[in-house]
């Protein structure tokens, strides 16, 4: 069982949902390891966004409120920090703010940047999993370290009515 194969099975599962739409940087255009994971999806399922992480996170909430299942991709976990306002102050609080009447569901995926064979330095390989777990009340934050964890986590993310942040490790993609 290989980690990357399980990741692809999980992504294919999300891609099979009729309302899923994959958003972020390098989904329509080559650029990161995540590009390979969506390359076989129908082009209508892919939406390349500008590099504007907070905008992307809010945009995903807005899509979800109109019935879509956004899968919001952040190829480096360092960059999702820029989206924390929307993820924690809005998505995480939305159900409480609407007294349980509205619960937009967003699946987010962030990748801890690989350090081998090339070490990208201090700003591209951080793992903020514990920080997100600490900040989140209603979002499931799931770090995937072992291959056997991966597909079940994607299945749960699809089945639950909660939003999920999936965290993967670029070094495990090899």
């Amino acid at each position, binding site marked *: 069982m290989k980690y990357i194969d399980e990741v692809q099975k999980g992504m294919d599962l999300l891609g099979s949902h009729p309302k899923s739409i994959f958003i972020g940087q390098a989904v329509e255009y080559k650029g990161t390891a995540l590009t390979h994971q969506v390359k076989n999806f129908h082009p209508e399922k892919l939406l390349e966004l500008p590099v504007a992480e907070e905008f992307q996170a*809010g945009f995903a909430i807005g899509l979800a409120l109109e019935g879509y299942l*956004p899968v919001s991709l952040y190829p480096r976990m360092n960059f999702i920090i820029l989206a924390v*306002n929307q993820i924690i102050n809005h998505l995480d609080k939305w159900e409480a703010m609407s007294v349980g009447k509205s619960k937009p569901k967003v699946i987010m995926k962030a990748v801890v940047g690989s350090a081998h064979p090339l070490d990208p330095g201090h700003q591209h390989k951080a793992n903020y999993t514990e920080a997100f777990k600490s900040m989140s009340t209603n979002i499931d934050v799931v770090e995937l370290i072992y291959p056997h964890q991966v597909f079940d986590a994607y299945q749960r993310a699809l089945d639950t009515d909660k939003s999920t942040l999936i965290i993967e490790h670029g070094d495990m993609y090899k």
Partner: protein
Amino acid sequence: MNQNDLIEFENEIANIYEKGIIRAPIHLRSGNESQLIDIFKNIKKEDYVYSTWASHLHSLLKGVPINVVKDAILEGRSITLNFPEHNVYSSAIVGGTPSIAVGTAYALKRQRKSGRVYCFLGDMGFHTGIAYESIKYSVGHDLPITFVVEDNGKSVGTPTFNTWHIDTYYIYELMCKMAHGSKDVRIEYYKYESKYPHAGTGTFVEF
């Protein structure tokens, strides 16, 4: 609802608040009733309204029943009134809703639905980077969205001009120039002065 109805509603909430019944901050507005009535003449039931921490009047004009808005305020939710059954959402965070509003506008267009999104922004919120990104994306993709700048010249007590040193109306004009080529994106602006402070009534507990 007419202008007097809106004024009376806020006055009633102010009176209740001063009796210490509401155990949360409240955000009252005045001086913008006629402008809002004009704007809401065009807003239909299926349209979305994304608002700010000051959303009593927006909720009422969108068609949320008076007693429902009042109950939510009495329950302590003045700062984030959300009525999904009426497509009314608000955020207490500056610049909190524009990107969400754009996502909804994109979804409406993609599904060829007839609704429209109205995103209300205070003047300080209008100056934020996320507001600029949201307007720019809407213009670039010609989304069914109207941004409404509600300019009372300050954020809490901080004068917007004194901090940015650029007039909000000038930024509005720049944004209108950017939106000029778009069929669907509209940007509206109005200036007003509220008799109420940012939060509360000015005579009771300060938030």
